[in-house]
């Protein structure tokens, strides 16, 4: 049943812009607030990590405490609050600096995926016709391959795996998803009143696409991007788990730390649990924000 107060809300909403009302609803959403605080903290740690980290994450400072034969790794001790990893490097510093690389992977993969999707989506959505057909069949082909298989295929293409090949593999998987999303929203607008009006006024096609169609497609794109930030972190971890992560681990990244710990997870679970915990919390942060944004921006939800 629609109550009286809800009706009043809906009425008052109609006078406010979409973004403003979305923002108002977001501020009231506990889901959003939790997610946003997580992301805020994550970014803060990533930016200040070099100052916070007590040691160089690449140096095997505690190597003399490592024994493979006796399965010993350095325990927590003075100056090393979480102890060392299986090579005697400071786990705490690696976790802190790992946030930087993880943020980099998430952001770059999303930006590249969005960029590719934008290009294809605009091509298809703006021009329609045979361009649309060709682009969308290509998108169909890419979408038909399960995402991880596609990422693994791309990752395997490079002679040696680096952080960049991981980013690229994760990003390319997102391209068709962004492309389809953008094409859908833009296609819907091609025959909408404001676009028709703009065309009638003799505004150039390019200008229509960038000034009138694209801004209106922004909402879903922002939502999707936020979600992809989480997906990228998780997919990068999955690639590492399958042995396709960056080979050089002197610069730490959480997914890679988790993947690298899988063989000793039974005896030294902390080596896996710390990075896994970080990944889960941060991915949850992005997902919470993404989902609450989706909810807030959905016109149907405006009540």
């Amino acid at each position, binding site marked *: 049943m629609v109550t009286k107060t809800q009706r009043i809300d809906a009425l008052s909403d109609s006078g406010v812009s979409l973004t403003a009302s979305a923002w108002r609803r977001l501020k009231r959403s506990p889901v959003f607030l939790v997610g946003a605080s997580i992301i805020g903290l994550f970014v803060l740690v990533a930016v200040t990590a070099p100052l916070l980290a007590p040691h160089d994450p690449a140096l095997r400072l505690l190597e003399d405490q490592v024994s493979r034969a006796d399965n010993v790794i350095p325990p927590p001790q003075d100056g090393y609050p979480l102890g060392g990893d299986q090579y005697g490097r400071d786990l705490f510093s690696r976790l802190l600096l790992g946030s930087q690389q993880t943020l980099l992977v998430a952001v770059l993969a999303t930006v590249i995926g969005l960029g590719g999707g934008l290009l294809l989506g605009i091509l298809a959505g703006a021009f329609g016709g045979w361009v649309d057909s060709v682009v969308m069949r290509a998108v169909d*082909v890419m979408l038909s391959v*399960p995402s991880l298989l596609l990422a693994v295929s791309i990752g395997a293409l490079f002679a040696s795996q680096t952080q960049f090949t991981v980013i690229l593999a994760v990003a390319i998987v997102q391209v068709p998803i962004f492309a389809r999303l953008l094409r859908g929203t833009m296609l819907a607008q091609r025959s909408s009143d404001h676009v028709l009006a703009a065309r009638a006024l003799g505004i150039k096609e390019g200008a229509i696409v960038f000034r009138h169609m694209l801004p209106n497609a922004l909402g879903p794109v922002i939502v999707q991007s936020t979600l992809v930030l989480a997906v990228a972190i998780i997919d990068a971890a*999955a690639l590492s788990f399958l042995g396709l992560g960056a080979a050089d681990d002197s610069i730490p990244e959480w997914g890679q730390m988790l993947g690298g710990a899988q063989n000793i997870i039974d005896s030294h679970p902390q080596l896996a649990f710390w990075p896994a915990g970080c990944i889960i919390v941060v991915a949850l942060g992005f997902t919470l924000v993404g989902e609450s944004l989706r909810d807030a921006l959905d016109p149907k939800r405006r009540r």
Partner: protein
Amino acid sequence: MLRFTVRRLAQLVLVVVVLSMLLFGWLRLLPGGPVSALLGDRATPEARAQLEAQLGMDQPLIVQYWKFLERAVSGDFGTSTGVQRGTPALEVFLTRFPATLELSILALLLAVAVGVPLGYLAARRRGTWLDNLTITSSLVGVAVPVFFSAFLLKYVFAIELGVLPVSGRQDTGIDATRVTGFYILDGLLTREFDAAWNALVHLVLPAIALATIPFAVIFRITRAAVLDVVDEDYVRTARAKGLSAMVVRTRHVLHNAMLPVVTTIGLQTGALLAGAVLTERVFNISGIGQAVAIGFQRKDFPVLQVVILAAAMVYVLVNLLVDLTYALIDPRLRTR
């Protein structure tokens, strides 16, 4: 309806042909290649060149592709070079696919069985603590990498508590007859109920781990769909007519909310197969996910070609089926 089906089938053929070409060229760009995998780490460069010539890999790519097509038409998709050396790639796929399908179906059933009622409940209690809690917990499922949740489940239930098996599809002591390759089904068909039960027990943990992927989406879509539907005119009308809450809920709300859920299940096929790759690894299930992982490691082109193509076909076919079901449920769509 017929035209719709034909058009979608044509699309399927197109996807398969284009993908086969891309895949063929792509795999041959991979560094290394099957020759080093076949010869091992003890081969001389001369032996390598000789083998490349014997396998026709020194010929232009287009010639190789043509030969591949010729053989493919006669049903020969090549022979595995690494996953199960000497076995036809198609056979490798066929012996392994039931394991993956069994796992995926069970995971999907679990996700639907939990996701739909929870989604409905959350929608009915929109904005309450229950709603927020279920949303958040469904999203935690998304945020935990599936291989990590698989590991946790295994650690707790198989290793610490020891109540469920650690890995595999069936205990080696079970003398089971193989009919279809679906072990649960086989056990039921041959009345070897202990074998069926044993296979099911082996699938519990992997299926729960894998179910976290579709669960969150099914939950969210159900919730959103129910929210959409409760405000539709016909539901209000039904209520106004004084139909009981129960009837309104099941006949009108849930029935109509199911449409987007069915679509979502179709779209989840790809994600399920991807998640299966990771789950199979943790639980050592010899399905296609494991074949792909080993295939990439040993550069087993024939198996990779067949498996990735087949996965794509499955995805397209499932979505075709979903669209057809959709069209059956909602007559308006047939004319589109």
